[in-house]
């Protein structure tokens, strides 16, 4: 297993040199499991998915299976999806509405706040053998909610969600708070791709692939024919690896503004955002952001087919690795609660026709992620780096009204380099001594 100095030679983010080895190597993946997926903050779900007390969805926090629910008091909670007795998966459906969670193996039953209500054959336990008050469900160690987005971390020493998101919250306000609240509509599309999770994350902050990877849509006239069409914007890097773009579209060709939302909603920007945020929301139609490491927003304007009118869409994406070379993808459609019904319908139809596994944009991306992964597995490939040097000397644009380091050109690899720099920082974090065995000390209740 490589030690930490080796990792620094594999990822030289400031030079734009990322070793192909980090993408498909099982040893690197095993380190990621502990140092990233055991320690960072991860998106679990949106509050609108568990609107009523007793609503439950089965998800993951990092790579561990969790139950996300709203308890009978209305409190949002997340637990390891595993019984305290024999470790059986408790919630085996994707969503449920229930007042208790009962294990099918031996019948241990828990309240929605995680307390063990009943075990099996309780009369057969001796004194002190079944300490029910200490056998509540294992809570996600840290849980936080920002703008309705529920995040969790398995690291008790992790900074608070607010600290970890930092200035990213200012940009999340624009995407998730511009007209009040947004809601996730229905269930996510879920599918698996034979790729490294990092090729997918890399792609979500890459603007200049659009012309080439989605060339078929240029041919059909659904994308502009100028290869620079998506460069007219800014990219921003923030602390903790959070990265984003705001793009205005090609001058004179693409005049979409206001995040692609109907004009009737634009006055709400001023009610919900500060003047600098309003300026950004007003001026741009496109945005992509990554809440490090694997959760993204895509705010776009596109047509769903060659004859339809373009429409704004808000798509949320999450990649969860299953192995070094296999990744589970989640894609949600979200909408402003204030959006009129005809816009909701148009936006949904546009989303489902362009994004997700059947989307005429998205399906080509998966081809790239799989083939990048397949070509990175051999010993020869692992000796070489990828190329992430675009904009190494790009000056900061100090006129950008928002926080972070901004660059006036949306074509560049500054955001990718920032992502990999954070990857290296996390992978090099001093490891505590053996994590130890957690027995019965999980706390229960508020």
């Amino acid at each position, binding site marked *: 297993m490589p030690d930490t100095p080796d990792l620094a030679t594999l990822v030289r983010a400031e030079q734009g040199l990322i070793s192909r080895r980090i993408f498909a190597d099982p040893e690197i993946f095993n380190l990621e499991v502990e140092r990233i997926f055991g320690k960072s903050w991860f998106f679990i779900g949106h509050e609108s998915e568990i609107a009523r007390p007793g609503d439950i969805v089965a998800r993951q926090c990092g790579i561990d299976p969790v139950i996300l629910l709203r308890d009978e008091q209305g409190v949002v909670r997340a637990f390891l999806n595993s019984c305290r007795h024999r470790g059986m998966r408790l919630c*085996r*459906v*994707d*969503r*449920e509405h229930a007042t208790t969670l009962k294990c099918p193996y031996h019948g241990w039953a828990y309240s929605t706040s995680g307390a063990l209500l009943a075990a099996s054959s309780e009369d057969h336990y001796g004194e002190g053998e079944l300490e029910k008050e200490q056998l509540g469900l294992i809570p996600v160690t840290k849980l936080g909610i920002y703008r309705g987005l529920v995040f969790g971390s398995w690291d008790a020493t992790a900074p608070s969600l607010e600290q970890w998101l930092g200035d990213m919250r200012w940009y999340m306000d624009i995407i998730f708070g511009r007209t009040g609240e947004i809601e996730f*509509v*229905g*269930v*996510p*599309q*879920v*599918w*698996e*791709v*034979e790729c490294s999770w990092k090729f997918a994350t890399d792609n979500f902050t890459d603007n200049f692939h659009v012309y080439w*990877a989605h*060339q*078929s*849509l*240029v*041919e*059909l006239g*659904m994308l502009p024919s100028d290869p620079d069409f998506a460069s007219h914007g800014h990219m921003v890097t923030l602390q903790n690896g959070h990265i984003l773009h705001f793009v205005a579209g090609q001058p004179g060709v693409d005049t979409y503004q206001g995040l692609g939302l109907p004009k009737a909603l634009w006055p709400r920007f001023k009610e919900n955002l500060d003047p600098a945020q309003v300026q950004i929301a007003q001026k741009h139609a496109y945005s992509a952001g990554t809440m490090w490491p694997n959760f993204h927003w895509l705010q776009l304007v596109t047509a*769903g*087919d*060659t*004859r*339809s009118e373009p429409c704004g869409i808000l798509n949320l994406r999450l990649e969860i690795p299953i192995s070094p070379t296999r990744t*589970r993808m989640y894609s949600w*459609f979200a909408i402003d609660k204030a959006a009129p019904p005809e816009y*909701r*319908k148009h936006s*949904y*139809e546009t989303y*489902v*026709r362009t994004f*997700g*596994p*059947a989307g*005429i944009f*998205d*399906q*080509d991306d*998966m*081809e*790239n992620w*799989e083939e990048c992964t397949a070509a990175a597995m051999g010993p020869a490939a692992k000796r070489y780096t990828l190329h992430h040097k675009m904009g190494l000397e790009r000056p900061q644009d100090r006129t950008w009204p928002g926080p972070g380091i901004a660059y006036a050109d949306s074509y560049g690899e500054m955001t990718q380099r920032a992502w990999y720099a954070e990857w290296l920082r996390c992978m090099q974090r001093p490891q505590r001594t053996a994590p130890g065995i957690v027995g019965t000390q999980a706390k229960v209740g508020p």
Partner: protein
Amino acid sequence: MSVASAPAQRASSVADPGCMPGSALYGEILQFLYQEAELLDECRFREWLGLFAEDIRYTMPVRTTQFRARGPGFQDVAFIEDNFNSLTTRVERLLTDTAWAETPPSRTRHFISNVLVRLAEKPGEFVVRSSFMVTRSRGGQGYQMFTGLREDTLRRVASGALCIAYRNILVDQTVITGTNLSILF
């Protein structure tokens, strides 16, 4: 979201001897479905598109795992929600040389079975259910497999030919394990 939740086509519950295996109608519909599969497996997508009515709704809802009492798990949110224009765009895209997900093309095999034919409430329309198993071989990779049920409405048009007026693709998987849905069903 009610976008994807239009009611399935209603069929007469009366078993019509004219729809039974061995009948001329059943044979005609079986042949229609096999010929459709042939067009797909031979990448004759424009001819395939010609089988659809202009008011086609072609949809594949997302499915979730849930307890039996809560139904089969099909959701309002879909993987595919196409009308004639978007299905045409899907086909025209596949026929460019730059739709990388299918360039070079996947090799598919559409196995169609368990065909049930019923008369629809509307004269000249038939509710046809068929099971599908679609295998995809792509590059040098192993097989990907997609299985499910298609709920079609076939319509007899003025020329006497059949066309597909509605197709609901009910997949068996809740997590699509086959990379993407760049192939047609």
